[in-house]
């Protein structure tokens, strides 16, 4: 019996474990164990005042706090029967641009690229290719600076609220970011070209892609839940088709469709379903790449992130140029009992929230379906599909290839509920 063990999977957010048992070239058992401790957010949100919810849910994830703020705000606004549009909505997209930029630049260069370039980390990469790493950090920094200019800080920004914004951010610090964003846009075009040259492991999966789709804009907050299998649902009907289940080896819940199938959310799903809504430069970058859509190799989600990075720098520039705050920054809330759901696209995929509130604005019920809970069963299935290749590899390479697959999903394990222990056992 052959066993491969690494103490912990690195360069992911949070802690979990992986067990693969292989017999006759086939995976007989695959488990992605989530050791990340349960944190009970949906429990202690009960009885909190609605305006506290976005601040609390932000703490689910330090890498994508904006996603948690936005999905909860949209759900609570829906419960109150209000909708923020115009400049208030455009500013939400701009805040989200900042999060995509820092999260994608982090993932492409610091988390996934080391796998493709044969380095244990970006810090090691810096020793051999210092300019690549310096540029990556500069690309990431402008995202964090954008978050700071709008929300005061990049991790858990403080300006977004139910009903709009606590305060319109000053225009000057935003405009001051334009030259750096223009530089980063060019760097992202170059990243998209470079992303095509990397040695991705081979794996093609017949995925069901699920993402928010909007006819006029790259799906982020408004629109319908689209599936590549043809289902198109308004957010209110999300739970009729996408179901969460508690499985024994995991502190995270696992999702499946009502037909029982596993689906994928995140950059591949978005790009494949929404490429027509990309900004012009991002569409050009996609066209120049001459890749056939849909992309069905999970490792190549790096390419999708790179194209999205072009999009979000471009959109950020356009939104800053059009920024004209006027009138009150937030609506006056009229509290009433109600129920509402909201969704938005976190950098790692669709994030759904539903709340019930009472007439005093206190939460009575909360449900949160994070992207990683939706992707976990899919990752397990992908690992099964990878098993015949893993059997033929040297142990070290097999371990790296399996780890790389998990990392390519950009899993946010703290979100989904620590130690990703990888154990590949060859039962032959």
């Amino acid at each position, binding site marked *: 019996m052959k066993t491969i063990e*690494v*103490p*912990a*999977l*690195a*360069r*992911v*957010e*949070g*802690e979990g474990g992986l067990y693969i048992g292989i017999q006759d070239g086939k995976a007989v058992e695959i488990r992605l164990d989530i050791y*990340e*401790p*349960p*944190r*009970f*957010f*949906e*429990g*202690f949100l009960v009885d*909190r*005042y609605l305006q506290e919810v976005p*601040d*609390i849910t932000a*703490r*689910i*994830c*330090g*890498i994508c*706090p904006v996603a948690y703020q936005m999905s909860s705000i949209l759900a609570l606004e829906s419960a109150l029967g209000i909708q923020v549009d115009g400049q208030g909505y455009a500013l939400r997209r701009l805040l989200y641009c900042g999060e995509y930029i*820092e999260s994608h630049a982090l993932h492409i260069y*610091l988390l996934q690229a*080391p796998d493709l370039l044969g380095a*244990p*980390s*970006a*810090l*090691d990469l*810096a020793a051999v290719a*210092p300019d690549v*790493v*310096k540029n990556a*950090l*500069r690309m*990431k*920094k402008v995202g*964090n600076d954008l978050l700071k200019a709008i929300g*005061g*800080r990049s*991790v*858990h920004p*403080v*300006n977004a*609220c139910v009903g709009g914004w606590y*305060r319109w951010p000053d225009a000057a610090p935003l405009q001051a970011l334009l030259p750096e964003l223009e530089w980063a846009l060019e760097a992202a075009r170059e990243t998209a070209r470079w992303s095509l040259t990397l040695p991705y492991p081979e794996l093609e999966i017949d995925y069901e892609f699920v993402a928010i789709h909007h006819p006029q804009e790259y799906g982020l907050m408004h629109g319908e839940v689209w599936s590549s299998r043809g289902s198109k649902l308004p957010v209110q009907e999300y739970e009729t088709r996408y179901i969460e289940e*508690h499985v*024994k080896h995991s*502190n995270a819940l696992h999702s499946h469709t009502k037909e029982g199938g596993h689906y994928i959310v995140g950059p591949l799903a978005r790009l494949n379903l929404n490429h027509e809504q990309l900004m012009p430069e991002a569409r050009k970058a996609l066209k120049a790449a001459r890749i056939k859509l849909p992309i069905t190799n999970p490792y190549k989600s790096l390419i999708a992130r790179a194209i999205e990075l072009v999009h979000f720098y471009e959109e950020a520039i356009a939104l800053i140029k059009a920024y004209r705050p006027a009138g009150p920054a937030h609506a006056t809330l009229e509290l009433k009992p109600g129920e509402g759901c909201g969704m938005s696209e976190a950098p790692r995929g669709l994030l759904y929230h539903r709340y019930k509130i009472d007439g*005093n604005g206190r939460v009575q019920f909360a449900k949160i379906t994070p992207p990683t809970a939706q992707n976990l069963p899919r990752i397990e299935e992908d690992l099964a599909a990878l098993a015949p290749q893993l059997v033929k590899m040297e142990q070290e390479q097999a371990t790296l290839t399996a780890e790389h697959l998990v990392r390519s999903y950009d899993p946010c394990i*703290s979100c989904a509920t*620590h130690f990703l222990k990888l154990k590949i056992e060859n039962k032959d």
Partner: protein
Amino acid sequence: MTLTPKTAPKPKVAVYKFSSCDGCQLSLLNLEDELLDLASAVDIAYFLEATRTVKPGPYDIGIVEGSVTTPHEAERIKEVRAECKFLISLGTCATAGGIQALRNFSKASDLADRVYAHPEYLHYLDNATAISEHVPVDLEIWGCPVNKQLVLEALSALLQNRKPNLPQYPVCMECKRNGTVCVVVAQGTPCLGPVVQAGCGALCPANGRGCYGCFGPNTFGNYSSLVPTLVGLERFPGETALLLRNFSGYAPAFRKAAEAALKASSEKESRS
């Protein structure tokens, strides 16, 4: 402590994650302008979010993010302490239990029943607690999230064998320095600024809202004055207690103040 005699090898640094959101570790990776210099000044020996390379301990500096919430973590923190010469609690989860400690105000098993279909699959402690409740800690850096510049200051100070220069005054001082008009006085907005440690730059008042206490209690807090003032401003009964029972809610000073606020709030209700 002497970490860096000139001939000594670079100090070995380990970064650990306990129950948390990753945001405080991320603040290290968010030191974009300083990260490569920092990485060359120290030996990053264990930092899973950044690298697969794991060098064996003991380590000169250990940085712990997160709070202790499971029986496994309660054991693991002892191992961490044993392998680190100087231990830093990074962020309010590590210094006060953080967001996880919101469970401490309910019965954890009730919360588990509410969230999970099979609570029997879970392993957790009833209370989420600070690192210092389990092992001795050498330096605490508060914040939800930490201010990355303060983390850099703390690490630089350790490398230079000096005491870190971390703010020891209330958030109110930062508002005055920023020229921010007091949100309590001008708008009647509840704000914890007077009892909270500075460090964030008084971001919330600068955005027209009250401080919700990410950086934890300062040592100057005059609760017998603040609590009645805030209860008097409450927009709904219990608002002050909720404000105190937030990210630093399980810090002893805030726990006590929240109980006083609940009492004052219900007395106010029964009078009206």
